[in-house]
Each structure stands twice: as C-alpha cells, then as structure tokens.
C-alpha cells in the first residue's frame, strides 16, 4: 500500500460565521487526478490554502507526504509541492522574465553557491527550461518580463513553473481560466501526462470540469457547507447535487460534456420547468 500523497482527516473550516466544509476525509494516492468543483464562495480556494498550510483548519489534520502542513510557526511548505496560484497579474516592474519563473521552479529553493554561467549544471538546467517552454507553448514570450505578459501567457508559465520541479503533488487553482480551448487542451494534457509518467497527483480546482473530464479519477464537489466525493459518474448526478445544494439541480450529459443547471450561477427564465 503506497503512502498517500495527501491525507485530510476530519477537516473542518469556517469563514467567520459560514461553515465551508466539515468532517472532510480524503486520501489522495499517486497518479490520481482529482477535480475540486464548486461554485464561487464554496471554499475551493480555501481548501487549497489549507492544503498549502496557509490557513489553519478549525478541526482535523492535513498531511502531505506524511508530514503535517503546518508547524508551530505557521505554514511549512514542501519542496515536493507544485503550486499553480489563481491567475493574478504580476508587478509591472518585476525584474523576472518568463524563463526565470521556470528556473525558480527548478532550483529556486536550493541554498548554496549559485552555479557559474557556463557550467554543466547551468547548461543542463537551461536545456530543461527550454524543453518546458516548448511544452507549454511559451517560446514567443518567455524572454519578456512577467509584468508585461497577458493572463494566458503568465498562466502557462505558472503551470510550467509548478511542473518542472517534478513535484509529487500538483495544486492547481483554476489553471485554465485565461486560456483558449486549444491552449486548455495543451495544458490539461501536460498535467495528465505529468501524473501518469511520474509519481505525482493532481488536485485541480475548477468550476467547470469539462476540459479535464477525460482525465479525472475522482471529483470532490463542495457546496453549501457540504461535500461529496467519488467518481464523476457517482457525484455529478442530479440527486447528489440537489441534495448538496438543497434545491433542485439538474445534471445534463450531452456529447461527452456535463452541464450543471440550477445552481445560483445560472439565470432561469421563470417559465422554465425541469422534471
């Protein structure tokens, strides 16, 4: 029995008065691709923050690779975590080029004397960064400073930064939000390939499961202070989601896509009737 990459036991978290989730038990094994789905405000990003150790749980424990994610001083962090933050522009004047972001992902955490510009080590790292730039389709803009990049360009670099270090756990916070369908496929393929070929697991926070539906092993659905875990077929069902939301919710499957209708995000015409 392999050690789980992530283990949450009895996890509970409230945001002020509002309970986000409680009694959360989940074990994530290597090679798993888990989608964390829910509407805005359901606690998806907060769950990621809790896994990162940025936010302490009200109850329960979170362990990554067997180690608690927080210590006495606060967030612990882990060399083997690849974190893709929610898409946010970076400071315009930051002296950081796209390719530097990838270099940070590779050895930015390492103490010790920097390697000389022409050493074998530096050339090897340059080769790996170049390869990742190709894989994420960033050749046209990797030399530009991060403050000058578009949302989609920066987002792809973020994915590259997280993956290049061969992480055991990839935490992706809506990593496809700024990408067009073609780019979405490239990045989703990349993440899938990464977890298949290496001993890593992917936690994919999103509000739309369709771009990664083919890769998802399990879904963690958060809504209304409650949650449901299981395969997409088990969780993404009208009965299950209606129970979670406490109002009638319809899950429609059409041509390999899943659409969830009836949650507060979608507008209804008053004459519509759903059986």
């Amino acid at each position, binding site marked *: 029995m392999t050690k789980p990459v992530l283990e949450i036991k009895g996890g509970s978290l409230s945001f002020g008065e509002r309970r986000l989730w409680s009694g959360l038990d989940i074990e994530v094994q290597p090679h798993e691709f888990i989608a964390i789905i829910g509407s805005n405000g359901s606690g998806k990003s907060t769950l990621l923050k809790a896994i*990162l150790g*940025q936010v302490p749980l009200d109850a329960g424990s979170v362990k990554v690779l067997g180690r608690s994610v927080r210590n006495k*001083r*606060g*967030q*612990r*962090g*882990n*060399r083997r*975590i690849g*974190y893709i*933050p929610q898409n946010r522009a970076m400071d315009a004047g*930051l*002296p*950081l*080029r796209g390719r*530097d*972001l990838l*270099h*940070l*992902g590779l*050895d*930015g*955490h*390492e*103490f*010790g*004397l*920097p390697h000389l*510009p022409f050493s074998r080590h530096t050339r090897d790292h340059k080769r790996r960064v170049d390869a990742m730039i190709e894989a994420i389709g960033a050749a046209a803009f990797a030399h530009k*400073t991060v403050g000058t990049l578009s949302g989609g360009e920066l987002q792809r670099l973020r994915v590259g*930064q*997280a993956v290049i*270090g061969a992480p055991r756990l990839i*935490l992706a916070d809506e990593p496809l939000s700024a990408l067009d369908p073609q780019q979405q496929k490239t990045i989703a393929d990349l993440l899938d390939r990464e977890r298949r070929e290496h001993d890593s697991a992917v936690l994919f926070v999103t509000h739309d499961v369709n771009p990664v539906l083919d890769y998802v092993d399990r879904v963690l659905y958060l809504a209304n202070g409650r949650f449901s875990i299981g395969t997409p077929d088990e969780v993404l069902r009208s009965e299950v989601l209606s129970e979670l939301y406490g109002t009638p919710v319809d899950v429609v499957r059409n041509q390999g896509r899943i659409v969830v209708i009836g949650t507060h995000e979608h507008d209804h015409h008053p004459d519509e009737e759903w059986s």
Partner: protein
Amino acid sequence: MNLFDFSDYAELLPLVTNSLIAGALLAVVGGLIGIFVNNRDMSFAVHGISELSFAGAAIALLVGADVVLGSVFGSLVAAGIIGVLGSRARERNSIVAVLMPAGLGLGILALSLYQGRAANKFGLLTGQIVAVDNPQLVWLGAISVAIIVVLLLIWRPLNFASLDPEVAAARGVPTRALSFLFMLLLGLAVAASVQVVGALLVLSLLVTPAAAALRVSASTVWVPLLSVGFALVAVLGGILLAVGAGLPISPYVTTISFLIYGVCRVVERLRARRSTAARAVAA
C-alpha cells in the same frame, strides 16, 4: 580650491590604499545586496538604518569606544526593529520615519558633546578619505567577506522569496527566516558603508548602483555584474578624484552614482523607443 586637483597625486595615492581596498569591498557588498534592497522595497529602510548606525557610531566616539562597533550596534538594533515590526511596506515606512529622527537626534547630541577633532565628527556623516586605518580595514574586510559569502549561499531562495513569495513559501522556502537574516546582513552592510561614505549617503552605495542596473537588465547574470561594476566605478572613482582635491569623498561617489543611473535611464528609454518602432515597422 579645485574640485579636481591632481598636482600631488603621486604622493597622496599611497595614503588612500586602505580606503581603496575598503571601498572596493563595500562596492561589491553594496552592488549585490542593493539588488535585494530594490526588489524588496527596502530603500527607505536602508536610510533609517544608516541614521541609527550614525547614532551608534557617534555615541561610541563620545565615550571612546570603537566607532565601527558602535555603528554595527546601532545598525543591528535598527535592522532588528524594522525587521520584526515592519513586514508590510506601508507599516515599515512609518516605523522607519519614526526611528530616523530619533536616531539622528541622538547622534547630533553625541556629536555636539564630543570634544575631539571636527574631522571625526564630519566624517561620520559624510565619509572621509584617510579614515580607514589598518585595524578598521581588517574589520571592514571581515564584515564584507562574511556578508558576501552568506548572501551567495542564500541567493537563490532569497531571490525566490523576494520576487515570488507565495509560490516560494508553498515550496518550503523559509521566507520569514530569510527576511530576518537579510535584515541582519543589511544592518552589517550599512554599518560598514557608513565608515567610508558616511551615514547620509549610504544609499548611493546600497541602492543606486543596483537601481541603475535594474533599469537596463532583468538578467540574473547581468544585473549583479552591472550593479557591482557601477558601485566599483562610483566608489573607486570617487576616492581617486577626492584625494587630489582633499575634499570628502562622498560628493564624488554620489555624483558618479547618480550620473551612471541617469545614463541607464536614458539607455532604457532609447531601447523602449527602438522596440516600439520595430514593432510599428513589423505591423
């Protein structure tokens, strides 16, 4: 009185070998640590630390203690306070603004009570050419080498924490410990620089050369090289020019530093114009 006087140069030069060596070491320190001062938005904090370093040195001068030790003490106290209390830029700026006049006031008091040579007093604020005697040079050398070695050993994680703190923390980079260590190194660098350029003008060593380099490059190799290069030109150039005229070195150092920065800004502007022009032609 000539600003540029090389009449007795051959005789005067040997007198400043200590200053040249000290200056070169401090230029390397300032050029390297200045990159992080800029990236971590610490320029104002550097000034605050230098005022308290001056206060420490002035009090030491008054009581007859070692001036370098006094300035190190003042520096570390300031760096410690700012490091512990001021993690966010806005808070940090207020804390610095509060500490600075307090430190300056104490220093002025100590200087006015000091009965010794006026040159010593003035030198703390503006730097002196022949101020670096052999024991002092050993101290400065040791501090400088220590700072450079530690900085190189923590370079990559400190860089990560400075430019991309959220992802760095997720990776396990000890951002808080590095902040603290950085403040310590900065305190030592300021204390050392006060000896050569004086408390008022430490920024010209610890901020300007790196700021100039960052205008013209974002390369992880070129920025440190340029920054150290600019600092060396400013300090060594300043000492060599000031020696002939017999004036304090700091006006020369600061002017050269400023001119280099100005040239870099022009270069940056020209480059930006050339690339927009190229894009317009290509379109």
